[in-house]
């Protein structure tokens, strides 16, 4: 028996989420007293792979596929074969685009119940019960898995990163034959570089209709720059075309969980709050003292965001100089 973790890489590098998954898998393997297997697909060099061992990786499987595109059917066939080899009982993915594409396929292949968006370690192992988010974080539920195996996607920032220095054994697999009939062809890719991505950001600065016009976003972008954060917006703002759709946070847009979330001129409609309520600290600036955003905010200023945001930028600049 074993616990099995899939760690995605981004151009050959792991991210915080990868280390969080290994930490989570390690804790579970320890409680169950079984082995921990980590799988990485695609080109990652050994120095990068060894980083995983800092968080408790025992056996690290490095898989070569020979394709340059993420094909969920091919990847799940590969993962399923490795899971069977490792006698995996619990398979863990991140609750991100890749995890959401693979976990359900693995669940069917391995006849294993799927719990999406888990928020911590299992409450019990026999039966297997774990808590998950539902209604986009507006509620939680304890889910019992009825099958012998289980597949879990872990919500971002739900567990944390813990160091557990371990020995790492790296095992190389050439599984190119699985990719022979991939039906997905990559035609082109466009990527923003040099910007902090909304999903990775520790600090997110978000503007709503209270910012009045797209040309007023200067201070928001400046604050993001100074704090090393990412910019976001509410739905009306992206619907108006003031900001790109990729910045829309909320129930139908991106669901995020940064350490610090600034809501400037956002009233806090229930759908918006659902997308950001997992943030550790929420700061709101809004003219309307009755705005629902103040019900979920930790800190706030009742006032015009247009006037206050530039002042906050100046204060942060002063602080950074000290």
């Amino acid at each position: 028996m074993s616990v099995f973790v899939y760690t995605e890489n981004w151009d050959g590098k792991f991210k915080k989420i990868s280390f969080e998954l290994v930490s989570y898998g390690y804790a579970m393997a320890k409680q169950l007293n079984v082995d921990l297997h980590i799988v990485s697909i695609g080109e990652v060099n050994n120095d990068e792979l060894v980083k995983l061992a800092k968080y408790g990786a025992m056996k690290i499987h490095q898989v070569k596929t020979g394709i340059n595109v993420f094909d969920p059917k091919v990847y799940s066939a590969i993962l399923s074969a490795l899971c069977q080899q490792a006698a995996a009982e619990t398979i863990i993915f991140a609750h991100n685009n890749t995890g959401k594409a693979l976990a359900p396929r693995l669940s069917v292949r391995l006849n294993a119940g799927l719990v999406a968006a888990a928020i911590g370690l299992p409450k019990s192992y026999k039966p297997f019960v774990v808590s998950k988010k539902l209604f986009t974080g507006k509620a939680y539920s304890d889910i019992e898995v009825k099958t012998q195996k289980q597949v879990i996607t872990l919500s971002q920032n739900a567990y944390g990163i813990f160091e557990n220095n371990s020995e790492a054994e790296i095992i190389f697999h050439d599984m190119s034959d699985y990719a022979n009939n991939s039906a997905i062809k990559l035609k082109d890719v466009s990527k923003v570089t040099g910007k902090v991505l909304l999903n990775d950001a520790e600090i997110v600065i978000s503007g709503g209709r209270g910012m009045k016009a797209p040309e007023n976003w200067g201070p928001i972008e400046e604050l993001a720059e100074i704090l090393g954060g990412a910019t976001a917006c509410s739905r009306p703002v992206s619907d108006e075309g003031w900001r790109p759709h990729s910045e829309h946070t909320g129930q139908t847009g991106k669901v995020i969980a940064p350490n610090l979330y600034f809501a400037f001129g956002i009233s806090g409609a229930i759908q918006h709050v659902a997308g950001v309520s997992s943030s550790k600290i929420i700061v709101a600036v809004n003219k309307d003292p009755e705005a629902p955003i103040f019900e979920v905010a930790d800190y706030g200023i009742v006032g015009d965001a247009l006037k206050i945001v530039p002042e906050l930028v100046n204060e942060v600049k002063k602080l950074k100089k000290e």
Partner: protein
Amino acid sequence: MKILICLSNVPDTTTKIKFVENNTKFDTNGVQWIINPWDELALTRAVELKEKNPSSVETVAVISVGLQDFEATIRKALAIGADNAFRINAEPKDAYFVAFQLAEVIKKESFDIILAGIESSDYNGNAVGSMLAEILDMNSVSAVSKLDIENNTVLVNREIDGGTEQLEVQSPVVLIVQKGIAIEPRIPAMRGIMMARTKPLLVSEVVSSEEYCKPLTYELPAPKAKVKLVDPENPAELIRLLHEEAKAF
């Protein structure tokens, strides 16, 4: 090509979430049910494609697992422009149950493109589309934000961290779609509503299947502590609190 959209029936996104029977059941009292927002966008795009190029899109069908009371939502989908509908007469249980029931019907038909929303806005399983693909041994692409059909080739955009990939995919394929596939859902026109009444809706009975997961209890998040308000004349105080008290930067 034949396009199928998987629909799920969800509480309106403004619903106040409550639980009853000792927190073991979702309180459906007074809940307004709607087509899952992403499913509705997928349907909107499929109908657009058919209108734009009737020679490449032969039919647009919808399918869902639900009891009789779900038919209002299905009729709305037909009014938006779907040609025909399938309903499997069962209370939707976990994602595997739903995917399994859908697959049983789909196996008897033949579809080139199956569209599913990225998640249902209630249980957030993010699972049915990809499970269906695996059961049917089909290709799948997730996080699809654009769909075009050119000379019988399926072209999609897939959202990745910080960017977009343009992919060409062989059909049959299951596409799990998100916002961007269409921006606004289409509102049914009066003519569509009239026509929807007579469009075919095929009801089939449930096939027994295994239950993978079962919710035991539900709970609401603990209420947050009251917001700490700072004088608007003293923004420096807010930054100080964030720095020293919250240690946020």
